[in-house]
């Protein structure tokens, strides 16, 4: 694996750190001994052909694979230096700190307001209605959705358009003040305009959260991320600055994939 130093890399500790992480589904190894640092200040993109393990790896960062009975994770993943797979780890708490946005928008079949308020309420983030209202408004504003929904917060979240639903899901994720947001192909079900809005949003959220995005669109990875990791057959092949990966990749397998020569 080739790793290039970031030219303006901060000396700060990475937000998340994976070391020799392997993920198995039964006997099948989906991810093979991958190590990577996720910094706070950047958007990190995971790219690679279908079945390369990038989504599996992403889901290991908030233990989403725990829900699959046959899945098993080896190696360590740390959040601020704390092993998230240690025994006694509060997984619900972990998933509040490491939020996730999925491929298809999946709002709860509840009001727009409730979609955002649900997390802060169950995690006890809000003291009273006014406080909760403020959290809902702030989250919807950060997700770039407030102006479009402020007059119909009581309407069902599922009545929104696909792009609005996805931004609602992002608002829901950021309502619980996460430190990391994992996005698994967040725009694959959206049209180009809704996609552009999500990408603009990702750019605005950068710096406030560590963001990791899995995408099948090279152009999207190039547009939104500062660092890109290329996965192939469960291995991390190349990890570096996005501009370098897309203009001068060092590994021929990376080059073949991003230029459409992947057989």
């Amino acid at each position, binding site marked *: 694996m080739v790793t290039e130093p970031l030219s303006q890399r901060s000396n700060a500790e990475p937000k998340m750190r994976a070391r020799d992480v392997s993920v198995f589904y039964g006997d099948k190894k989906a991810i093979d001994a991958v190590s990577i640092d996720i910094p706070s200040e950047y958007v990190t993109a995971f790219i690679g052909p279908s079945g390369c393990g990038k989504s599996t790896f992403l889901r290991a960062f908030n233990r989403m694979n725990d829900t699959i009975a046959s899945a098993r994770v080896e190696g360590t993943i740390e959040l601020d230096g704390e092993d998230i797979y240690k025994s006694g780890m509060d997984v619900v708490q972990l998933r509040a700190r490491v939020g996730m946005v999925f491929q298809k928008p999946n709002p709860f079949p509840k009001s727009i307001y409730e979609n955002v308020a649900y997390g802060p309420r169950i995690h006890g983030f809000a003291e009273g209605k006014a406080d909760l209202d403020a959290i809902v408004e702030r989250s919807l504003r950060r997700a770039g959705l407030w102006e479009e929904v402020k007059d119909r917060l009581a309407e069902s979240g599922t009545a929104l358009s696909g792009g609005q639903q996805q931004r609602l899901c992002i608002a829901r994720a950021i309502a619980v003040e996460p430190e990391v947001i994992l996005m698994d192909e967040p725009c694959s079900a959206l049209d180009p305009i809704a996609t552009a809005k999500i990408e603009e949003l990702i750019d605005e959220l950068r710096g406030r959260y560590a963001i990791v995005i899995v995408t099948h669109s090279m152009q999207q990875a*190039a547009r939104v991320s500062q660092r890109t990791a290329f996965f192939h057959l469960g291995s991390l092949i190349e990890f570096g600055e996005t501009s370098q990966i*897309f*203009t*001068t990749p060092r590994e021929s397998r*990376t*080059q073949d994939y991003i*230029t*459409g*020569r992947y057989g």
Partner: protein
Amino acid sequence: MVEHTVKAFDEDITRLRGLIAEMGGLAELAIQEALEALVTGNEELAQQVVDRDKKLDRLEGEIDAMVVRLLALRAPLADDLREIIAALKIAGMVERIGDYSKNIAKRVGRIEGRGRFEPLTLLASMGELAAEMVHDVLTAYAARDPLSAREVIERDAKVDAFYDSVFRNLVTHMMENPATISSAAQLLFVARNLERIGDHATNVAEMVHFAAVGHYPTDIER
């Protein structure tokens, strides 16, 4: 090189490279014939060089249009992107080389008393060197060979040295025979044009290097 999954993209790139090769061949021929016309005073040949330059202009236009189309439709990345950007810039540079040759050809009729000019043989040798640079840099392009490209770049110093020598020679000539000043001044422009052709061949070589490895030869090796 591994083929693209989309075969039509490979065909586009092959066609683009073919157009560049065609331009290179025409430019090399233009230098040689312009010099031959200059040395022998063959105005008919000079006119042919001038007329044929339009073809270079047309090819450059064709390459421009093709590059815009490829960028819009294929969204190329990595070596494809470098290849296509290099083609765009190289086409512009080779077109300029054609212009310099045309400029030399246009001066053929303005030289009087050819036999008296010893610097004419110097110019012929200088032109040969410049034409070789153009030939070799396009061979390097065809082979995607950064080492040959570097070798062409190193040769530019020789063309520059030739230019200095021709310049001194012509100035001396003018001082000794003021009657030849008008013709000698024309030859100074010819020398200047050849020197510029060497510079453009060097620029093409830098783009060949960039397309092949992702950085310019002057950059620090990484």
